[in-house]
């Protein structure tokens, strides 16, 4: 009978487990970044697309009468928050694609034959990668918006922006990873991403305030997770930095910044709990 070889100077089991999870997660994350570095087109497109939105769409209503929008700013200023959120959202929605390709090309099997300490490392690596990527894109949009004269949230506002984006990115990444394991192939995943993207944008407060919308669309927008991310960021841009400030006059009631963030946090948590059984099954 033989025993499994362990490292010669094995530290405490828990510390060793953590070290191993760290080693495997970092290695998997590094792989994704090396891929990005050598194929930067996704990053370039991911930054370019929202910039085009910002410049062209922002100019579309440049001559709209002053005071039409709540808060009274220019349309470009209004749009900035929407584009930032939309960028982070569509970036995170793509989180499942690398995983899907690994499933299809059998690379995942290579990972599953290895004695990973925890197979959550595979998921964790994707979350880390997409989070960093989304934040880089968002910062690029923030800077461009500032250059276009659409304002800058300031240090405290920036923290609020980043926290909001993190919560949204976690939630959408969970959804996308779940889809990557539930759907049969990348064609289906891309189709879902394609179909989900624009309607979620239009049925939110990214492009127009709730007060412009008919009741039915207002309801949709007030239930859309994007709205819960857009409004706190918009308030940060407006220099309004109180967590209890009312930022959303929804048909079902008023919501403060803190409440919006709580909805996003609950959504992220709920989605991770929802996809967990699926991941456990697929990775067991």
């Amino acid at each position, binding site marked *: 009978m033989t025993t*499994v070889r362990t490292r010669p100077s094995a530290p405490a089991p828990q510390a060793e487990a953590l070290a191993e999870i760290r*080693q495997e997660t970092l290695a998997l994350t590094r*792989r994704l970044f090396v*891929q990005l570095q050598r194929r930067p087109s996704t990053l370039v497109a991911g930054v370019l697309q929202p910039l085009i939105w910002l410049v062209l769409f922002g100019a579309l209503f440049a001559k709209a009468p002053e005071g039409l929008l709540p808060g009274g700013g220019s349309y470009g200023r209004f749009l900035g928050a929407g584009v930032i959120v939309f960028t982070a959202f569509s970036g995170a929605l793509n989180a499942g694609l690398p995983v899907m390709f690994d499933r299809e090309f*059998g690379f995942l099997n290579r990972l599953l*034959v290895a004695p990973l300490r925890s197979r959550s490392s595979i998921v964790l690596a994707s979350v880390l990668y997409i989070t960093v990527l989304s934040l880089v894109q968002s910062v690029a949009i923030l800077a461009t918006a500032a250059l276009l004269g659409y304002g800058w949230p300031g240090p405290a506002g920036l923290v609020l922006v980043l926290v909001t984006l993190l919560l949204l990115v976690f939630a959408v990444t969970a959804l996308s990873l779940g889809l990557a394991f539930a759907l049969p192939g990348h064609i289906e995943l891309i189709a879902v991403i394609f179909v989900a993207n624009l309607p979620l944008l239009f049925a939110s407060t990214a492009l127009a305030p709730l007060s412009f919308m008919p009741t039915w669309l207002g309801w949709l927008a007030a239930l859309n997770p994007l709205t819960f991310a857009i409004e706190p960021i918009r308030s940060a841009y407006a220099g309004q930095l109180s967590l209890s400030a009312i930022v959303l006059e929804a048909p079902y009631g008023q919501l403060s910044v803190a409440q919006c963030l709580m909805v996003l946090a609950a959504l992220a948590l709920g989605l991770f709990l929802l996809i967990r059984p699926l991941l456990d099954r697929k990775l067991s």
Partner: protein
Amino acid sequence: MAEQAQSAAAALPDNDPLTNPLTNPPIEPLIELRGLQRSYGRGERAVRALDGLDLAVPSGSLYGLLGPNGAGKTTALRILCTLLAPDQGTVRVAGIDALADPRAVRRLLGYVAQEVAIDKILTGRELLELQGDLYHLDRGVRQRRITELVDLLGMGDWIDRRCGSYSGGMRRRLDLAAGLLHSPRLLVLDEPTVGLDIESRSAIWQVLRQLCSSGTTVLLSSHYLEEVDALADRLAIVEAGRVIAEGSPATLKQALGGDRVTLRVREFSDAAEARRVQTLLQGCQGVRQVVVNQAQGFSLNLVVDGEAVVDRLRRQLAEADLPVFALAQSRPSLDDVYLQATGRTLMDAELAVAGSRDPKAERKQSMR
């Protein structure tokens, strides 16, 4: 070479560690698969890939799983490597229950899959580094092993190029290196040389022989008779999801004895005529194991004890007005072992399944 091995085996008493407890103390096999059952799909369309497969691989052996495509070899290896759960049966590696403690088994074995999954954007070295981290090697150990394997497999010229530019042989060598990186006790290879050029094939064979002589147990599947004959010191023939013959190549050939004869009374006989010839031959003294080979135009495969029997057999057929049209005679080969066990040649078995498999559906099956 094969001839020599055969005569050596004939001269010695049974030297088989698994069957002869007198010459060798019984050792526990490194791999023990018992009663493996596994089906794909459900209901009417279910395909049974494994149907009670048993396998015992002794420690330190170079073991071959021989069988046509679709016999269940890949499924068995995937179960062994903890990628797939069997519907029924047990899997033990080095005494560890692979179903209860898969992670311990994963540390013990290196797996070189059939479909080489390589990240095209990484260089070979980066892939090996990733692999090292997935097996939790210390940085120093990892770098030392990579250097060793780059030398061993002759990868120095291209290891720092991106994998996307590699040829099939280069990919396979890199994949072999990845499987060996953590110095596993057991190396499992699924069709390691399929579709490879001769140079890469012989390079891989040489490495496998070296590994085995330095104490690593190697289990490989193949549908190439020559490969198993040249490499394996033990083999199991897998057919329709179970093992139907098992032993060393020399012992298996030895057990057949005599010369193999393929005989036709007409270029293409029909079933009735073939059966007549079969009955007639079965009555001949010194003729054994007469099998009708339907796929080869109802030719007859038989075993004869010596030259005199062939002459007598020709005479008797001529008297029965069935003169011999063609007759080929040879020493027993692994192909004959296969034919004897299954009633058809390996090539015919290959051809029979070639049309009935759906590669797309099989890729879906192996997808998680």
